[in-house]
């Protein structure tokens, strides 16, 4: 990679950060888009902080370090809140804000209709509040809301209708947000016929197309089956069909969490490292691969399911393995871009260049550490994807160990790091409590290293996930590596550090929010240097969204057409399982809960 530099347009990359002169931040250029982005980030960060508090309650409870906050039967309300608030609302409100910023910045035009944008934000927020109300109602016996069905809400467990209605409203809000970005693009296209789609907009559009295709699954599940079931309009559902529809959506949503991180790693991280993106065309290839391969893989979450033929699992497994390709390519491009930046900053040597990177810049440090942890998460994901070895880890603590590296660090830490860079630009305020921000990524990284390694090892011993008290009277788990008490301690300590990391982040954002505007120059600006290898080198077919959407739909039809047909052919509601409302313990089963 030593000769990865070339001499074209280096001056753009060298623009020093502190000489912005008169402040012309994003908020001054595009006030409407900045407002929507701020609103989305506000909801996102609130969800993060609440989710983090729920997280530490769980970590201490299930490891039996401290069980004084909740009873074990309330653990599942906490777990539902943790999953939904973090996996759906923290991440996707952030995405909504970041993509509004990215389309606006890269197309160079403010929102088409600010009231419409406010509308989709309001719908998302209203839906999210309804869902949260249904979940947290579970703590209060007098309130008839119950929704401790976890983030996957598998039927025939049944939550209060408010939970499903809120999810549906929120989902429609995300669809309208996508419409907003597409409309901005089409307006731009009208004025710029023949030009290449700006990279950030390209990433937004491929991601939202993937979202439109994949959310069909969960929309049908919620609107056709679960909401009518919870309202008593239908009397039963087919649990395998609804579960399959969930995972039709449930894997692409993983990439919906990850794409904002990739978006930041490709377009912003190279600048923070002091360089430029290595290759624009490869970035486009990667996003196209995610669009076409993200959905026809959902059966890899159902390797252990009866009622699904092995062949369909095999197709999903193969697609999943090929989905590694865009991530491998990303690893190359991101590291190469960082090395290029480091060498421009005077770094040298095979590995010595890393010392020249700006590790004290919280935006850089957060993204780089998140990327590093994503590599580890990728490898544990390969184990999950291998459909035979998966039997050893399916539904064990290995799985949350894995996804706390991916969504819990690759996505979450990158989003926090991006906020350190972007929040000042959408508010016009300098980042406050900079010292907190500087240590925060390291606190998160260490906390996650402790928690995740122990979760992986506990999973190998067979310790189940999603369980309030994974300590049983009948037997004890035998650890192959380390000891169970040591793992519990690491999980609890790691969880505590992660909560501290979330609180530090919250403090920085809150202090910045309350800081005065317009005092002093910003440390950061929105200028992004040109890639070393630009889009003009790449075939134009890459920008053909219609073609890629059609390919994606065809692959989905191949992977899902026959299995879903066979599940529906015996009657869409058969085998008919009656609902089991959560929060009601059936004493007829003879089970008495303490």
């Amino acid at each position, binding site marked *: 990679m030593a000769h990865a530099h070339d001499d074209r347009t280096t001056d753009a990359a060298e623009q020093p950060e502190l000489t912005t002169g008169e402040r012309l931040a994003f908020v001054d250029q595009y006030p409407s888009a900045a407002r929507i982005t701020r609103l989305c980030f506000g909801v996102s960060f609130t969800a993060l902080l609440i989710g983090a508090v729920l997280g530490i309650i769980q970590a201490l409870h299930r490891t039996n370090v401290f069980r004084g906050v909740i009873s074990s039967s309330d653990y599942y309300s906490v*777990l539902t809140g943790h999953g939904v608030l973090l996996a759906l609302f923290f991440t996707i409100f952030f995405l909504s804000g970041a993509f509004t910023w990215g389309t606006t910045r890269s197309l160079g035009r403010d929102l088409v209709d600010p009231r419409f944008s406010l509308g989709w934000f309001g719908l998302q927020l209203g839906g999210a509040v309804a869902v949260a109300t249904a979940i947290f109602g579970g703590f209060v016996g007098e309130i008839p809301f119950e929704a401790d069905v976890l983030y996957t809400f*598998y039927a025939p467990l049944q939550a209060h209708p408010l939970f499903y209605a809120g999810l549906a409203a929120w989902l429609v809000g995300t669809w309208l947000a996508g419409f907003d970005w597409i409309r901005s693009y089409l307006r731009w296209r009208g004025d710029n016929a023949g030009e290449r789609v700006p990279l950030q907009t390209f990433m937004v559009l491929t991601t939202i197309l993937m979202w439109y295709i994949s959310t069909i699954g969960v929309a049908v599940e919620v609107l056709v089956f679960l909401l009518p079931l919870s309202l008593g309009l239908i009397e039963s559902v087919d649990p395998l069909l609804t579960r399959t529809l969930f995972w039709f959506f449930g894997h692409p949503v993983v990439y919906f969490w990850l794409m904002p991180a990739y978006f930041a790693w490709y377009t912003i991280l190279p600048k923070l490292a002091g360089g430029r993106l290595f*290759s624009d065309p490869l970035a486009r290839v990667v996003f196209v691969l995610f669009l076409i391969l993200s959905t026809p893989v959902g059966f890899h979450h159902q390797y252990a399911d*009866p009622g699904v033929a092995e062949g369909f699992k095999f197709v999903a497994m193969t697609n999943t393995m*090929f989905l590694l390709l865009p991530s491998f390519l990303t690893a190359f491009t991101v590291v190469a871009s960082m090395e290029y930046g480091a060498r421009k900053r005077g770094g040298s040597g095979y590995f010595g260049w890393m010392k020249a990177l700006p590790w004290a810049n919280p935006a850089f440090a957060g993204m780089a550490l998140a990327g590093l942890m994503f590599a580890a998460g990728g490898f544990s994901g390969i184990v999950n994807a291998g459909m035979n070895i998966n039997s050893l880890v399916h539904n064990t603590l290995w799985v949350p160990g894995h996804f706390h590296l991916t969504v819990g660090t690759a996505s979450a830490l990158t989003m926090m790091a991006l906020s350190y860079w972007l929040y000042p630009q959408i508010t016009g305020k300098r980042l406050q409590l900079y010292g907190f921000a500087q240590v925060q990524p390291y606190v998160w990284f260490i906390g996650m290293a402790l928690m995740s390694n122990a979760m992986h090892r506990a999973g190998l*011993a*067979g310790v189940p996930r999603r369980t309030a008290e994974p300590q049983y009277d009948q*037997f004890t788990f035998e650890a192959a590596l380390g000891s169970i008490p040591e793992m519990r301690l690491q999980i609890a300590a790691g969880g505590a550090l992660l909560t501290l990391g979330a609180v530090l982040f919250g403090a920085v954002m809150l202090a910045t929010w309350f800081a005065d505007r317009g005092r002093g120059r910003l440390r950061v600006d929105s200028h992004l240097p040109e890639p070393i290898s630009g889009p003009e080198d790449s075939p134009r077919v890459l920008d053909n969204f219609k073609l890629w959407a059609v390919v994606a739909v065809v692959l989905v039809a191949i992977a899902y057409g026959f299995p879903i047909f066979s599940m529906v052919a015996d009657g869409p509601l058969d085998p*008919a399982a009656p609902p089991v409302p959560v929060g009601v313990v059936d004493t007829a089963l003879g089970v008495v809960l303490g």
Partner: protein
Amino acid sequence: MHVHRFERIWLVAALGMIVLFVGTVTYGAVVAGYGMVNAEGGQVDTTDPAASESFRDPGVYNGSEPGHYDVYVETRRFAFVPGTGEPIRVPADSTVTFHVVSADVLHGFEVAGTNINTMAIPGQKAVVTAEFDEPREYGLVCNEYCGEGHHTMAGTLEVVPQSSFNATAEVQS
């Protein structure tokens, strides 16, 4: 389109790794004979599985050949039947096929520390076959959330020496 030489090398290496991974799984399925849980178990009644043709009253049964046993397990909130109230007992040096169903919501059937790990989905029957060599006691865990008492849902599987396995008393006919 210009792709840097190092990136091309990386791309080919990544593709090679992917093909290798798919190859190992294929090898496991085709050559090593690892059988996935699949659709062969057929469907059962969603609330009364024992009433279905493909399921029997829960318990241990003689298999199709000597040394083979069929274990019919019903999962329900918050117990394995058999497994929780009384342990599942099978002899050592045996091949055991587990037939696992659910009578209410989703459950997991995991023999802790082994690769016997399947979902129990109302309306479907999961079939998993395993070999047990040595006498040993294993823990049974429900590893899919099934309600407020989920953490109490566990049991035991006892692999006992053949000499102490009383087939007439412990095997149903």
